[in-house]
């Protein structure tokens, strides 16, 4: 078993080596050192440090700040009063000019960032000097729908972990960038790929998968951080029972216009074996409740995206938030937002654990999710029961008209609302900040059988409506009431994510290169800086030697075709 895995990897590496040499002659799966010795300040990332992240001003140890994924930095040096004076401290340029979605990690003054095509850099977080550069040796086959993206590494002990486009998990020595182990997560020839940042807890590396556009069967897997051995798998598509309860209404009570009688007939006639290609990718980082040892994640769209007849039923657990046991991967609870989705309005933006008023008006531990639908959903953390959903943050229209061959218009478009963009939560203000987009679309259906995993399988097409303006909106939602506290509109659809700070500032970027700071209380724009390429990545905050820094990648975006770049910008007060 182990041996087999090894030889398969070895074979893949030799073959890729041949191609790689023919094309480039660069050294891959190896780190190149800049010659500058790794900073002595680099520390081992202990479980204790990871657990304490919420109140830790110095490090940024999780892609979304902490296990609860609040993306709220406790530092106050940069605040609403002085953010107007923010200046670049340095710019780090990578060797890869392609979309950047990385959330850099910072461990005691050392920053780890990633680029498209799975490069990793370790740099000095104060000066921008490079320590090492790792380039993943891509196997002969990688299959991904929406750009060669990577969203970042996870850190644990002296190792870093990265999922790759060819569906591998690699562990790197944080000091040297040398590969320590590599394991295959799933078969890339069947449409599996990785762009998400994993999370690590108690020696387990948790990671999901992309592939909802290729007819995969989604999962979250836990790997042993020391060895790379698989510990457990939670399949997001159960073999039995994925037809669910034949829900007629969505989470907000609107009728989804399903023809349930026809679906039942199709299920009886054709059987339910399609669970193996029903999609349900998990492509954003899960949240972990360390008290109850519960992992929360959201599950993506069913495959194919737009053609539903081939997959009758609710298609559980697609378009759902799911809770599983951290130690075993056993199912705990779920809540489905859209049953039998035919619009690709899946659940993507990473869930956040925080406190909000329950149905009884008392403070309750909740999990929230910002939907492509444009609603922020607030769930009871124990049961995932929906407590409330927010006002729509962007225009909605014609919900839920069914896709037609010629195209049916419905708002929001398939990118949302809130795309993968992580939200931030200021629990003192009880506000969740969500980066939204408005992109009017028509939905087209095309009957298509499963093409085998090696080809994109949408079952139709999405088109934007000619002549209609597209734009973005940063919305602050009161999670106790669901009311929108403020909104700040932008010229371009927002894709990237939000950072909130205890200094009362909210940061997010735009596709035109602008990186903006807003007043957390009222949405007033306080500062802006032109990074020269699309700022479509989640910002982070850290402190070194008593000085607070804000870092964000400016690499543009494939999906919305925003201007590409190759840089991480780091800002501080003069």
């Amino acid at each position, binding site marked *: 078993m182990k041996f087999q895995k090894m030889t398969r990897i070895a074979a893949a590496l030799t073959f890729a080596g041949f191609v790689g040499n023919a094309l480039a002659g660069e050294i891959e799966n190896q780190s190149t050192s800049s010659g500058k010795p790794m900073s002595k300040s680099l520390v081992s990332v202990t479980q204790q440090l990871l657990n304490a992240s919420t109140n830790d001003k110095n490090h940024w140890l999780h892609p979304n700040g902490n296990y609860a994924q609040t993306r709220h930095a406790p530092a106050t040096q940069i605040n609403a009063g002085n953010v107007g004076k923010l200046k670049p401290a340095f710019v780090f340029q990578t060797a890869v000019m392609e979309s950047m979605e990385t959330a850099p990690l910072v461990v005691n003054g050392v920053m780890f960032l990633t680029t498209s095509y799975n490069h990793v850099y370790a740099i000095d977080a104060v000066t921008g000097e490079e320590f090492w550069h790792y380039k993943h040796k891509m196997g002969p086959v990688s299959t991904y729908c929406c750009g060669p993206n990577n969203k970042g590494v996870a850190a644990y002990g002296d190792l870093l972990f990265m999922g790759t486009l060819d569906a591998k998990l690699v562990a790197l020595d944080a000091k040297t960038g040398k590969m320590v182990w590599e394991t295959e997560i799933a078969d890339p020839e069947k449409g599996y790929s990785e762009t998400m940042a994993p999370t690590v807890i108690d020696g387990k590396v948790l990671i999901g998968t992309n592939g909802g556009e290729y007819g995969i069967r989604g999962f979250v897997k836990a790997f042993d951080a020391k060895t790379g051995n698989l510990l457990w798998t939670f399949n997001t598509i159960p073999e039995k029972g994925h037809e669910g309860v034949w829900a007629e209404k969505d989470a907000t009570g609107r009728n989804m216009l399903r023809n349930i009688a026809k679906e039942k007939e199709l299920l009886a006639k054709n059987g339910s074996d399609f669970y193996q290609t029903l999609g349900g990718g998990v492509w954003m980082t899960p949240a972990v409740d360390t008290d109850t040892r519960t992992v929360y994640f959201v599950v993506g769209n069913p495959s194919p995206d737009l053609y539903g007849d081939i997959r009758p039923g609710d298609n559980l657990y697609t378009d759902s938030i799911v809770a599983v046991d951290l130690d075993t991967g056993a199912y705990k609870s779920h809540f489905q937002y859209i049953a039998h989705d035919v619009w690709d309005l899946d659940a993507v933006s990473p869930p956040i654990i925080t406190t909000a008023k329950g149905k009884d008006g008392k403070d309750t531990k909740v999990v929230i999710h910002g939907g492509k639908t444009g609603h922020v959903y607030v769930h009871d953390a124990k049961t995932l029961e929906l407590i409330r959903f927010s006002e729509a943050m962007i225009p909605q229209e014609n919900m839920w008209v069914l896709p037609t061959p010629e195209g049916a218009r419905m708002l929001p478009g398939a990118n949302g609302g809130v795309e993968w963009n992580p939200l931030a939560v200021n629990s003192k203000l009880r506000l969740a900040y969500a980066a939204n987009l408005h992109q009017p679309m028509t939905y087209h259906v*095309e009957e298509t059988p499963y093409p085998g995993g090696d080809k994109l399988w949408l079952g139709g097409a999405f088109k934007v409506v000619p002549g209609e303006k597209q734009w973005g909106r940063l919305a602050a939602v009161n999670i106790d009431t669901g009311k929108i506290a403020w909104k700040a509109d932008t010229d371009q659809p927002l894709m990237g994510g939000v950072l909130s700070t205890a200094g009362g500032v909210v940061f997010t970027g735009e596709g035109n290169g602008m990186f903006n700071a807003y007043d957390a209380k009222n949405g007033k724009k306080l500062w802006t800086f032109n990074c020269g390429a699309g700022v479509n990545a989640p910002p982070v905050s850290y402190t070194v030697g008593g000085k607070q820094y804000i870092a964000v990648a400016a690499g543009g975006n494939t999906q919305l075709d925003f201007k*590409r770049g190759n840089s991480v910008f780091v800002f501080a007060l003069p």
Partner: protein
Amino acid sequence: MLKFALSAALCIVAASNAFAGAEEGKAKATACVACHGPDGNSPSADFPSLAGQTSRYIYLQLKDFKEGRRKNEIMSALTTNLSKQDMRDLGDWFAAQKQKSTGFKADGAKVARGQKVAADALCTMCHLGGFSGQNEVPRVGGQHQAYIYRQLMAFKNKERTNDAGNMQSVMRSITEEDVEALSHYIANVN
């Protein structure tokens, strides 16, 4: 003309076995150059250029010709005896060749119109900016205009159906005139 080219090419296929070994893909590609050009830049819009095409797309198309999902008399005959490794090597070799200009003179008004149609249909969401392609999604920027036109019409008319429905769905509601405009726009992209 096509018949002649076909038999010539088949001779080359036979001959190429004798030379196999030096640089896998290159040797195997000798069977292809009569039509697709010595470096994968085809001199005629009857044959698509393969230079700079993604390796994965070439591999999958060869597989589709071989297994009958994409229909073309010449190409299905040529792929009958190709192994998976052959097809991968060919893909790698053509992908590594540099794409050259076809010298096509585009009509300015059609280019402008094509650009708008492309934006609304979100072509670059899959084909990427500049229609440069990725993995199984082909590079089409700078391809022969007449070839692009033929393929888009073939998707529209459901004569080419090996696309898992994606291109058929995209093209269904695009008019013939807009297909012409699209082909000018894309052929003009470098």
